[in-house]
């Protein structure tokens, strides 16, 4: 019981941290994609001489 107990406790803690880690990675990737997109939109507007939000 004790070795299985330890094994499953290890699975549990790994799963808990893994779920948070995967979400943080998703957030970071989405953040960089959005920043790149914002930069691209800014560059497009400047090139056309009309900034849409100005």
């Amino acid at each position, binding site marked *: 019981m*004790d070795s299985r*107990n330890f094994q499953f*406790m290890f699975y549990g803690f790994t*799963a808990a941290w893994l779920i*948070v880690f995967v979400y943080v990675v998703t957030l970071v990737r989405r953040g960089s994609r*959005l920043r790149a997109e914002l930069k691209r*939109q800014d560059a497009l*507007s400047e090139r056309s001489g009309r900034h*849409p939000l100005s």
Partner: protein
Amino acid sequence: MRDKFAYALATLGAIVLVRNLYLIFMVMPDEANQGMIYRLLYFHVPAWWTAFIAVGLSAIFSGLYLAKKNLRYDAMAVSVTEVALVFLTMGIVLGSIWGRIIWGVWWVWDARLTSALICVLLYAGYLMLRRSIEEPSQRARISAVFSLFAFVDVPIVWFSIRWWRTQHPQPMQLPPEMWHTLLWNWFGMALLTAALVLIRLDQEETDRKVQSMRHLAQFAYRS
């Protein structure tokens, strides 16, 4: 400014949670009947508490959106719901692993587990629903109604162990030092949740800015 505050909260939350890991593994004794597997409780219970507070906030922001039609409330609702789903998933996965040792099975279809699974599916459905609607105000309105509908399941999950006879245990009487560690872990998770929500909210606002720039640019180029 908000970014720095979010990173400070995340760092503080991480410090609290790592310190708690030391307490959980090195200081807390094994539970008399369950042995060491009971330690999953220190994450399972606070994960559900955190998730329920987050979905409660989501319901409040959704109600505020329907009352005031301000898209900022919609951004807040989606941010807290997404983070809530992380903790709902954590709660259900940890519970299942704990059940495999204590009950001998990964899953039972009792009222608590079934209503909890429905809760996870409802909030996953909320996020999927949002992806399927293009127009922002229509998306916000339908999502807000769906969020309020999904929240009906939360009291059912919470009270299911009192209303029906379930395999899931009743709330345990913990010794004070175990309560202390459990509450500290909840505090750490709450800090982490606040940080993740702030970062997600920032992204939602950036996304909205990008979308409006796109639309205005299209409109400007056409005219």
